[in-house]
């Protein structure tokens, strides 16, 4: 066993990011920056309607426009028109409609691709779209999920004969415990549709490289490795001839965890035309064509005794798939399936999810992916139970949560949480928040009839991170694994390459991964180069999503670094003429125990390994090591989030006055980056509660199709946050880490809504739709008062 060095101790330090110098000087390599000689630019004619038969499509007009090189509809594209794949057929009888990159005779959502034009410059390509002659026979749009699965509904994919994609069941026994319950609280929550809206619009460049048969595809993606496999399968390009590069990627949040139709089209057309093809979406295209998130109707029942002991939970979901199944569309709601019981002990759990097709943009993973929905439902209904029982909501939680002595604990949903300390995180959060003081102020405001009422919102959450043990994924019918790879190379000059399969897009992997390797190799952080996001340079990987990069990828970096030290130790022992076990390794230097004069730094070992003049028998030249690690289990970050909400009962205006969170994500590699991840997650979760919602009209037209209509919060819409942490290391992850990318987004939404409802309880308000805009809040208050809204 290799000693892990305390002396290098790069783990746990808030080191400033290596990435920033480039990003702060505009020395970036966004996909749209790539300008290859001879590039042709693609523009897409998209469906302006939700559901229609294409009765006429004539592209010939576009071909006559200046600078146009080619144009294609589905007919012209023929066999090159690949189907967008779904890799998570969640049930044996799941309905999987064909999803051609270019629509074949029928469009199924606003933004569906109808035809493409390629021109020598992007402007000419866009201009020529208007010369395409297209006619639609518009059909009724399927918008409402309940209507979609009712008899007589228009069917989105007629050949399938149903709008039900799948029905998934888990658990059982709820009815039995409910029969014994004193109280059953039932609620319907609408977890509205959201748009990821990463700041960098998607962009793809594909180029035949002229040497060998390689096609290089640059894409603004979170998943270059998975994209390579899937593009090979869809396009027929041999996988070995495809190189995928994710250069600088400007945010993803799940929205770039995808193989998009545009990636297929650009790749196929580069092959067909034999020259580089480029496409960059406009924001308006992004809003209708990049996948959306959430969109569930949640019917929740919580059964309990009159003294507040939870007995069982029943979850019945309708999950909007949208018009097609993308990479993990059907599985996304099921990522939440295990999390509905949250941190609570109970005896029974029934879960049913029905996936439903509608004429809307497909849904898929968005920051948290299933787990924010689950956390929202459980944390909202726990507050409703507390209200029903007349109990203090935190007391009810305490009474039911898993205590720190009870870990590892197998939940009613079947997961085994390895560690946690909900008491510690909560105690810290309550103190930082001044919970008692704010409750006193709330009481005073209620008594004085203040028009601005104060509410306190609680969210005590956990999540499953670190996707994922491959066998578990297999059991859930996901068609890939959840391992991660790392190769560590010590170069002859003493510099280090850490080659990772994770693919960052803002998370600071170059800095944090250097810290992990530094802590083991004793090499300074600045001498370590992290290589990622290029299947040519980092051939193995499962990429970045699901708070997995540190939890899984970090393990691979640790293991590979330790293996490298093991090999170096054998070489150093040979050089120093001692047994490997006689050597200690401190701050990058091997020295003979008890004789520190006899020593060799790791860099010198690397040079010996390079020259190979004097290696022990049986030891191969060069100094590198690799590790591919399948995680033992998920990790379970948790935390306590508290929101002080001021609600103007006369206008409906809601102000987030104070937000405190204490997250336990285990060991922190770089606390500065951790805090940043929490802040960003909070912003997105708060945005779901207060600001964002994709809305469609009855014809299926997206009403929030630009950043002028879809309300991403600005600096004026959010406060500064008060963040803290407790550290309960994961026992199933060797670095003790758990993952932090999604925590803020998962925890914050119910904290906000619970706070608003808490403020308005005296007015008889027990529910609040999201986003809680002033109009929504005002109408809810009026309805509770019995007045006309």
């Amino acid at each position, binding site marked *: 066993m290799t000693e892990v060095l305390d002396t290098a101790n790069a783990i746990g330090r808030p080191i*400033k*990011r290596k*990435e*920033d*110098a*480039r*990003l*702060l*000087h*505009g*020395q*970036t390599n*966004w996909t*749209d*920056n790539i*300008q290859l000689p001879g590039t042709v630019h693609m523009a897409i004619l998209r469906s302006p309607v939700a559901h229609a038969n294409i009765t006429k499509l004539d592209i010939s007009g576009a071909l006559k426009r200046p600078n146009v090189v080619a144009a294609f509809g589905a007919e012209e594209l023929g066999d090159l028109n690949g189907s967008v794949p779904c890799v998570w057929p969640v049930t044996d009888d799941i309905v999987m409609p064909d999803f051609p990159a270019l629509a074949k005779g029928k469009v199924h959502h606003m933004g569906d691709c109808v035809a493409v034009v390629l021109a020598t410059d*992007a402007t000419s390509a866009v201009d020529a779209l208007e010369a395409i002659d297209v006619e639609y026979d518009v059909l009724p749009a399927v918008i409402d999920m309940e209507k979609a699965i009712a008899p007589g509904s228009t069917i989105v994919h007629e050949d399938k004969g149903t709008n039900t994609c799948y029905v998934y069941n888990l658990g059982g026994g709820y009815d039995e415990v409910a029969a014994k319950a004193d109280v059953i609280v039932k609620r319907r929550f609408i977890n509205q549709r959201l748009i990821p*809206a*990463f*700041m*960098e*619009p998607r962009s793809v460049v594909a180029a035949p490289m002229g040497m060998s048969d390689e096609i290089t595809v640059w894409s603004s993606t979170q998943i270059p490795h998975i994209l390579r496999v899937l593009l090979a399968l869809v396009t027929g390009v041999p996988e070995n001839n495809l190189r995928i590069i994710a250069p*600088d*990627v*400007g*945010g993803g*949040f799940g929205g770039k965890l995808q193989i998009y139709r545009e990636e297929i089209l650009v790749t196929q057309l580069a092959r067909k035309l034999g020259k580089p093809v480029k496409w960059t979406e*406009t*924001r*308006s295209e992004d809003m209708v064509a990049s996948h959306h998130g959430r969109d569930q109707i949640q019917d929740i029942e919580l059964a309990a005794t009159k003294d507040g002991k939870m007995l069982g939970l029943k979850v019945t979901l309708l999950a909007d798939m949208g018009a097609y199944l993308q990479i993990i569309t059907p599985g996304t709601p099921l990522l939440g399936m295990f999390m509905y019981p949250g941190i609570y002990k109970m005896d029974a759990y029934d879960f049913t999810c029905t996936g439903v097709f509608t004429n809307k943009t497909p849904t898929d993973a968005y920051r948290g992916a299933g787990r924010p929905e689950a956390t929202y439902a459980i944390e909202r209904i726990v507050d409703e139970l507390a209200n029903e029982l007349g109990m203090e909501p935190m007391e009810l939680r305490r009474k039911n949560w898993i205590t720190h002595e009870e870990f590892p604990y197998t939940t009613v949903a079947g997961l085994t949480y390895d560690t946690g300390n909900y008491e510690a995180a909560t105690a810290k959060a309550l103190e930082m928040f001044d919970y008692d003081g704010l409750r006193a102020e709330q009481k005073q405001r209620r008594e004085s009839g203040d028009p601005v009422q104060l509410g306190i919102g609680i969210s005590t959450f956990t999540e499953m991170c670190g996707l994922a043990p491959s066998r578990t994924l297999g059991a859930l019918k996901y068609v890939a694994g959840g391992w991660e790879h790392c190769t560590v190379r010590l170069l002859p000059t003493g510099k280090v390459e850490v080659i990772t399969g994770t693919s960052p*897009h*803002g*998370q*600071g992997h170059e800095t944090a991964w250097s810290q992990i390797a530094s802590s083991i190799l004793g090499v300074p952080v600045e001498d370590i180069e992290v290589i990622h996001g290029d299947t040519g340079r980092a051939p193995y990987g499962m990429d970045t999503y699901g708070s997995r990069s540190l939890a899984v990828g970090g393990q691979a970096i640790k293991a590979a670094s330790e293996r490298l030290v093991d090999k170096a130790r054998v070489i150093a022992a040979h050089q120093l003429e001692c047994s490997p076990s006689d050597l200690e390794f401190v701050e990058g230097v091997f020295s003979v125990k008890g004789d520190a004069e006899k020593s060799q730094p790791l860099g010198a070992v690397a040079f010996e390994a390079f020259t190979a003049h004097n290696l022990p028998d049986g030891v191969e030249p060069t100094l590198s090591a690799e590790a591919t690690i399948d995680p033992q289990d998920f990790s379970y970050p948790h935390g306590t989030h508290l929101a002080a909400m001021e609600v103007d009962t006369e206008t409906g205006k809601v102000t987030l006055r104070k937000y405190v969170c204490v997250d336990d994500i285990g060991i922190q590699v770089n606390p*500065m*980056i951790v*805090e*940043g991840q929490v*802040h*960003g*997650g*909070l*912003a*997105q979760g708060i945005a779901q509660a207060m600001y964002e919602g994709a809305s469609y009209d009855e014809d299926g037209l997206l009403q929030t199709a*630009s*950043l*002028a209509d879809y309300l*991403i919060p*600005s*600096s*004026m819409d*959010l406060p*500064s*946050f008060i963040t803290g942490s407790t550290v309960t290391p994961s026992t199933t992850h060797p670095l003790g880490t758990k993952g932090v990318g999604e925590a*803020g987004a998962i925890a914050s939404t119910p904290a906000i809504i619970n706070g608003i409802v808490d403020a308005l309880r005296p007015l008889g308000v027990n529910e609040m739709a999201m986003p809680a805009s002033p109009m929504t809040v005002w109408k809810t208050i009026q309805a509770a008062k019995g007045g006309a809204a």
Partner: protein
Amino acid sequence: MQHISVTVDGMEYNAEVEPRTLLVHWLRNGIGKVGTVVGCDTSNCGACTVLLDGRSVKSCSVLAVQANGSEVTTIQGLADGNEWHPVQTAFKECHGLQCGYCTPGMVLAAVDLLGENPNPSEAEIREGLEGNLCRCTGYHNIVKSVAYAAELMGGGSK
């Protein structure tokens, strides 16, 4: 086509542009200033913000021909040689960026804000950056960065 002469990051460029060409498109596609980026098509996000004669503008809302005879500073010309602008330094020190896509616009908007108000309060910083969207940071560390930049520049946050 119309002739324009624009000084960008200290170098004078002469070009023929279509009258409809947006300044940001000319910067990116005309002269390769790809540090300036496009994030939307409705002038909401501010990612394309540059300094035009010292004041911040969204370069998607200005025609290239309107910049004729002007001086433009992009994120690529903000540093003085190897010397970082204090706003750049502050964003690194305070972790005011994650993916970095909004950063060019955010930094230049902050430079203008601090030029106008060297001593801004948190509320004034938030108001001053309202036109620049960030999806990664929740603005928390951006606000801290601008306050710290004010300090570095001799003003200091209220």
